[in-house]
């Protein structure tokens, strides 16, 4: 962390970089202002209740949109359609040969694909805005007839997303870092003060219901847990196992400059945040369905389900197992030891002591499996700790859980790396001093 602050400080000393940083900040401010501009025709309070009824998933989407969702801002859909469009286009390049060829044609082809992604974003934006409007019909307000209102809402949402896409591209081109990540980063961070406020409110509550000492202890517990989670997340996010690799193209020279010899890095958290998100979605599904359709049902099964999906030990155990399972699944599809081994072999590299081909792949697979075990346990802890803590302290909904932290950390590391690489290009002291 201190290294990161130094990096940013140093970056501000270089005029060129300072300009880029200021421009980025300026565009982020524009983005934040937009988050507060409401879409006409929807009642904010009623819509906010709808978001609440979605539970954790609603919270996550609200966090990713930087609070714009609850505000029914023009940026409510955030950049989701764009990301969906990029992924769809990636998929299509695998499936459609002419797109694959276009991508291979280098710069010109890639520009064309980018253009397709933009069009697809608008189409998807219209679709998603339509769905959003449909879901929020009950929260409609205003004087327009319904179909006109629908048009206003749908077009406002879509225009908002298109504008964010443009902002993001401006940051990519003239600023620093990945514009889209940064905007989401800014959104999540902007909820910090609200989190602090909530904490203060809880402190006051606890002081009233217990006494000051207990309140202080509880606050300390929450803060400590929070710091531990962030620290742990950073640690695991950066952690990698390094397997020494040698290349048969040339004999190593007298000395390797710049640290350790060549290595094959294997990331501990190969699965990313997706196991958490999937587990969360599945685990909150029953509760969401109940709250939508069976709020006042007296069916014993529903009542049992209601109890089972809130605070029971069994629920958390299943939750943890699910995260664990998804971690293995996603690690498997993300990291293919055979492919890595083949890649290594084709480039003339090898792991000393292991023959290329099957023995190497088996070794890599063994190492990565062990890491995945650790990672599964870790992800389960990161997700469940805030929930359990919320249960113990009765302070639910405190700021955010592990997912948001993982995203934040990822973006921050990216940004610092980019700054560093920019500075490497221009910063030299005297020689032999």
């Amino acid at each position, binding site marked *: 962390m201190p290294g990161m602050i130094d990096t940013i400080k140093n970056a501000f000393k270089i005029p060129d970089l300072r300009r880029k940083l200021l421009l980025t900040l300026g565009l982020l401010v524009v983005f934040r202002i937009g988050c507060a501009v409401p879409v006409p025709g929807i009642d904010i309070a009623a819509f906010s209740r709808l978001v609440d009824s979605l539970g954790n998933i609603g919270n*996550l989407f609200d966090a990713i949109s930087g609070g714009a969702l609850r505000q029914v801002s023009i940026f409510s859909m*955030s*950049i989701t359609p764009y*990301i*969906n469009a990029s*992924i769809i286009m*990636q998929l299509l390049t*695998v499936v459609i*040969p002419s797109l694959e060829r276009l991508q291979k*044609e*280098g*710069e*010109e082809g890639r520009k064309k694909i980018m253009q397709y992604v933009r069009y697809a974003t608008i189409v998807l934006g219209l679709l998603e805005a339509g769905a959003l409007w449909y879901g929020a019909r009950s929260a409609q307000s205003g004087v327009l007839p319904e179909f006109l209102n629908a048009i206003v809402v749908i077009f406002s949402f879509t225009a908002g997303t298109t504008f964010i896409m443009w902002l993001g591209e401006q940051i990519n081109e003239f600023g620093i870092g*990945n514009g*889209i990540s940064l905007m989401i980063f800014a959104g999540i961070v902007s909820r910090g003060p609200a989190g602090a406020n909530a904490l203060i409110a809880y402190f006051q509550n606890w002081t009233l219901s217990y006494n000051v000492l207990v309140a202080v202890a509880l606050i300390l517990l929450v803060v400590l847990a929070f710091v531990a989670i962030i620290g742990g997340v950073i640690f695991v996010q950066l952690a*990698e196992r390094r397997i020494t*690799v*040698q*290349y*048969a*193209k*040339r*004999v190593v*020279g007298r000395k*390797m*400059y*710049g640290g350790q010899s*060549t*290595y*094959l*890095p*294997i*990331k501990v958290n190969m699965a*990313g*945040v*997706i196991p958490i*998100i*999937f587990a969360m979605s599945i685990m909150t599904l029953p509760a969401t369905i109940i709250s939508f359709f069976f709020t006042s049902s007296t069916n014993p099964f529903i009542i049992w389900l209601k109890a089972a999906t809130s605070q029971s030990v069994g629920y958390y155990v299943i939750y943890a197992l699910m995260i664990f399972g998804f971690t293995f699944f996603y690690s498997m599809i*993300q990291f293919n030891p055979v492919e*890595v081994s083949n890649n*290594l072999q*084709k*480039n*003339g590299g*090898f792991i*000393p*002591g*292991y*023959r290329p*081909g*099957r023995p190497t792949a088996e070794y890599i697979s063994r190492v990565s499996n062990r890491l995945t075990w650790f990672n599964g346990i870790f992800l389960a802890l990161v997700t469940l700790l805030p929930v359990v803590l919320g249960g113990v302290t009765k302070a639910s909904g405190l700021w955010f859980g592990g*997912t948001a932290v993982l*995203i934040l950390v*990822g973006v921050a590391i990216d940004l610092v*790396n980019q700054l*560093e690489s920019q500075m*490497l*290009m221009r910063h030299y002291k005297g*020689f*032999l001093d």
Partner: protein
Amino acid sequence: MTRPGRPSLHERRLHPHVLFDVSSLAPQVAAVRREEPRCAALPDAAIAAGFAALGARVRAGESEEELAVPAFALVREAARRAIGQRPFDGQVLAGLLLRQQRIIEMQTGEGKTLAAVLPASLAATAGRGVHVLTFNDYLARRDALWMGPVYARLGLRAAWIQEGSTPAERRDAYAADVTYLTAKEAGFDLLRDSLAMEEGDRVHRPFHFALVDEADSLLIDEARIPLVMAGEEAPGTHDARFWDGVAAALAPGEDFDTDEYRRNVFLTEAGVSKAEALSGTNHLYETRSLPSLVALQNALHARTLLARDVDYIVRGGRIELIDAQTGRVAERRRWPYGLQEAIEAKEDVAPSRRGRILAQTTLQGFFGRYPRLAGMTGTAVPSSEELFEFYGRDVAVVPTEKPCIREDLPDLLFTHREAKETLVLRAISDAHAAGRPVLVGTASVEASEALAARLLERGVACRTLNARNDAEEARIVAEAGAPGAVTVSTNMAGRGTDIRLGGSDEARRDDVVRVGGLLVLGMQRHDSRRIDDQLRGRAGRQGDPGATRFYLGLDDDLFVRFRLSGLLPQGVDLHRRDGPVEDPVVLREAARVQRIVEGQDFDARRMLSRYTTVVERQWLHLSEYRERVLRREEPPRLFREALPERHAATVAQWGARAVDEAERRALLRCLDRGWSDFLESVAYLRDSIHLMDLVGKDPLLEFNRTAAEGFSELQRDIRAAVVEVLATARIGPDGIDLGSAGLAAPASTWTYLVRDEHDGTGIADGLGSLAQAVAAPLWTVAAILKYLGKGKKGGKGGSGR
């Protein structure tokens, strides 16, 4: 002057960095023309005097732009008197554009050589040297001799440099006002200068202005091969011949395999066992066996990926490399890292000494040393974007003096080599019988000789032009336009080859014109459209008639390497047939292969450029310091600071001057040695850095970070090395004995062919966990499909070949 066809809006949008409309310079061209009568009246002496006066005004601070008109008018007159050629308005226009540091596109035969004299003379008036960088040695000498009298009339001196020029000749040539030489020579002189031990040993003056001929080739195609200076080193311990024997016993496909683009060769599991058994090595893939493994790898590479008479020829008991761009033998060039020895073992010639890299730069880094840079070529527009990205130069199109009436016939595509050859042979003999000269462009020495043999079988007299008979080049080219002449060539007859219709004296020009002029036949597509266009450009010079046609085969190397068959839609009928394929889909996809290759090459060059930026800067930084040490501007202090007692004793014995000198020499050598080690380490790092992709790190960033850390470490090491040398080496009245410290100067130097080709493992998404969070279901589907897709492809690659 004919107006070129107005470029379409589409063309303008496609090439944002091209100046299609150069009419804004028309007033200046007209002004030069108005000056003509006045200049024509001047006596010879007044021309030189007038030009010298312009030089004085430039030195006094007047801008060259304002002086361009009077200067160009004088050059025009000087050229008319000296060589009897008056630069056309088009050439004056080209000169003005070159002066503005643009890359100009000018058709073959429009007189680029003379056009370059205009800005070169103007830039040289102020006494700072101008370099005209030519495509090859032959052109350097020819152009300097040809244009020399023009410069002489202006009171300037032109000189040229050849590969064999001595340092004294070079120094003298660089001292001239205008120097004609190849970029490679200039670049290697820069590298050699960077290792000089005395100021006076260097040959270059400070760089000023470079005019690059065949600019697209030098600035783009060759930018991929770094200039590398290597010095001798003790021979390696392993036995190249032994490992060549092992490699020879391995079976392709079974024991070893190549990657899809045939750039790497690797052993299979069966091959590893076999190689271990054959060589008696227990474990090849252990750290201690690395030298053996490298030797085996090199032997396999030499046997599998490099072919005699394609990549090199064997002549006079030596391996001579063929430059892929020019088709000529590249003197004093070798393969690096033991590959040279492996080839020598394969071809059973005497082994040469091993080398280590002493200094290195890319052509792009080298061109960056010139404060002013301009270029000219017949094919610049297709690469304008790249020229702008790498060099910040716009392309300008100079309209042709005479309209080009050359006929570019549509490609003929065949299903297999035999069908293609049959029709090519028929086309050649028909043209030959009709008295039409034919130039055939082939891919390699081997292919050119094979085709020539088949022509002779059919009774068609022909000559081959390739690296093997480069001595006869001028004579063969001179007669290539004679009636009925058939010339089978490699890339050698591409750029810079001027084929006059009717033979060298154009005696039977009319006969040739009557039958349609020169016929150029290409036997395959090259890696870029520009190279094809250059071959085409041999026909139809200066409004001559001529025709071109490319004969392609589905089994052409380019199509096989980039898997044209994979691009074709299902159901296309591709069974062997004797006639050409006429399916428009196949023809379109064949053209697309070339665009894919161009795109990938562009990306590879961009990668190379990104990976070299930091190291180039570090070199510059080190060179600046070295320069100060060399000029004795950096006060010696390491000796006194680190070894005060020995320093005092030595000073007492030999005097302060001798001791300072000893330290200076030790420091210079240690700097060079350290940099050489550093380069080696960086090269090794570059091999493995693509692995960073696996953890979502940016390999480039990691590379730069490691190089930056390494650079600090290097400085500590150099300091320590200097101190150690000073502590141990014998210092006497003759200075310091660096040989005893293992720092003797390299006995000879040569250049390396290093291809910087690395493929990454994939494209980092940039959004990472964000995409997962926002679009979890879709992302999952994508990941699974990718996973399955890779499995499928892997399976295919493993079974069939």
